[in-house]
């Protein structure tokens, strides 16, 4: 069930948070051996939090829609007294002395942390094929990856091992697993949610995001997480958004941009068919469809990698010198590549980044949101290094990040919602993005589409 369905029952005392937590742990115990979605399960602590929630609600201290709701956090969110590994052998025994701001805010909202979720090592990759903690498996097909780097968070939610989950997105790490696992994923505007206590990957690209079963749930979670934070210089001053999602899924007056360039090139045929059908659904809902061109977007995907490489290497510089043998081969290769990017090129890439933001801001004078596929492919198999699209072979990591990475450069709010299944029964994601800090507009468009299409109600048979 979604948060929106559970919360009224909890508020009215019809559903016990303790019973909900117990049901969640029963599912975790059944599915964790197959999926390996979690690194640390926090049963005792979570049941105590659930009991506290129940006491508070019974005595009239209901905190809001997340009160008593079980969630999981990617294992790079600092949790006081609980190991936070960042998916790394090097940090396997690291126990933070404080909570990340996101964790603290969810505690204040009364949410119950049930587990720390698996991730690609140091959040630097899209497979979640972690050499230290084992691969996370996709609940739609356990031979396939869940996407990453927040793959454990997405897989756990898709399998019902929590009711929502936290992730982080530096080059698509929320949206890719949302697409591959058939759940809703939101990467808000850069600075919208504090990154304090979140193990970094790329300082100018990292965003905190989250996964949910519906757009309405994603909006509720955003309201709890967003807002200024004196502990994080990059956190914006804007107050949390109030997102009003109408029950009637009409989009009259909304102008929806559909790129004529780049975003619809080299797609798996089932992905293109599903996304074109989604565009048709927006038209049916009353939106005006406008073809747009996002100028030089391919450059920004390349430059996003050029910026991330030295930023990540800077984060791990000392480990690269002293702990090479303890870093997985794929992450080590990227960290080594980051040593070759000159400061002049890094700074010029940051200069061109401003051009991208201006280009997008001009487009948002013409349209309210832009829709594209989230990923050009559905989930590859575990260990599959390349994919075939239209007779061309492409590196799986580059293919998965091809349509998402530039939007980390732009910092704009971006949502992935399920929009179909391919011929193998694997989920397909639709990406919706809008002007900076217009999460409300992006969520309204996604909510209307979701209400009309119903794709988010599909669950994996597991």
């Amino acid at each position, binding site marked *: 069930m979604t948060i929106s369905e559970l919360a009224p029952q909890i508020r009215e005392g019809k559903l016990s948070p303790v019973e909900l937590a117990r049901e969640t742990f029963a599912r975790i115990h059944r599915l964790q051996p197959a999926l390996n979605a979690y690194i640390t399960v926090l049963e005792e602590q979570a049941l105590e939090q659930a009991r506290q929630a129940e006491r508070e609600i019974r005595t009239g201290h209901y905190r809001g829609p997340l009160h008593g709701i079980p969630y999981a956090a990617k294992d790079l969110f600092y949790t006081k007294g609980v190991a936070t590994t960042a998916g790394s052998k090097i940090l396997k025994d690291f126990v933070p002395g404080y909570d990340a701001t996101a964790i603290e805010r969810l505690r204040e909202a009364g949410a119950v942390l049930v587990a720390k979720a698996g991730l690609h090592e140091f959040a630097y990759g899209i497979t979640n094929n972690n050499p230290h903690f084992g691969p996370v498996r996709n609940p739609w097909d356990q031979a396939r990856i869940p996407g990453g780097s927040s793959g454990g968070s997405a897989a756990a939610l898709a399998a019902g091992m929590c009711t929502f989950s936290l992730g982080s997105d530096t080059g698509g790490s929320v949206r890719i697993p949302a697409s591959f696992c058939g759940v809703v994923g939101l990467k808000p*505007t*850069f*600075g919208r949610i504090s990154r304090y206590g979140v193990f970094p990957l790329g300082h*100018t690209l990292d965003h905190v995001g989250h996964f949910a079963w519906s757009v309405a749930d994603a909006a509720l979670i955003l309201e709890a997480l967003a807002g200024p934070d004196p502990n994080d*210089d*990059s956190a*914006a001053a804007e107050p949390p958004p109030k997102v009003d999602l109408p029950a009637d899924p009409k989009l009259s007056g909304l102008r929806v941009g559909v790129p004529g360039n780049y975003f619809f090139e080299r797609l798996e045929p089932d992905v293109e068919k599903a996304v074109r059908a989604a565009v048709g659904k927006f038209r049916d809902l009353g939106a005006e469809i406008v073809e747009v061109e996002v100028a*030089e977007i*391919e*450059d*920004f995907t*390349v*430059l996003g*990698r*050029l910026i991330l*490489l030295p930023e990540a290497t800077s984060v791990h510089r000392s480990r690269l*010198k002293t702990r090479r043998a303890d870093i997985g081969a794929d992450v*080590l*290769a990227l960290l*080594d*590549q980051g*040593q*070759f990017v000159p400061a002049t*090129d890094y*700074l*010029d*890439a*940051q*200069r*061109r*980044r*401003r*051009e991208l*933001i*201006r280009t997008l*801001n001009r487009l948002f004078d013409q349209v309210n949101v832009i829709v594209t596929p989230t990923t050009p492919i559905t989930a590859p198999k575990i260990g599959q290094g390349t994919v075939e699209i239209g007779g061309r072979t492409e590196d799986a990591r580059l293919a998965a990040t091809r349509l998402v990475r530039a939007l980390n450069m*732009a*910092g*704009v709010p971006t949502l992935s919602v399920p929009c179909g299944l391919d011929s193998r029964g694997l989920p397909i994601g639709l990406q919706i993005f809008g*002007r*900076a*800090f217009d999460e409300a507009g992006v969520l309204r468009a996604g909510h209307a589409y979701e209400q009309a299409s119903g794709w988010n109600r599909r669950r994996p048979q597991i």
Partner: protein
Amino acid sequence: MWKTISQAMGLTIPPEQLEAISPALDALWSGARRALDRDLSTVDPAVTFRPELEVEP
């Protein structure tokens, strides 16, 4: 080329690892050079940036 750069920078990347990452570096730079090949001297780098404030100069 990457071997020369690595030596000049004093990096301690094992030769087989350097060989393994060289194709990726070649591919990255073929795209990046094209993307950076313009006069950007009047634009400040966005090392900290606020997307909502970005407007035409």
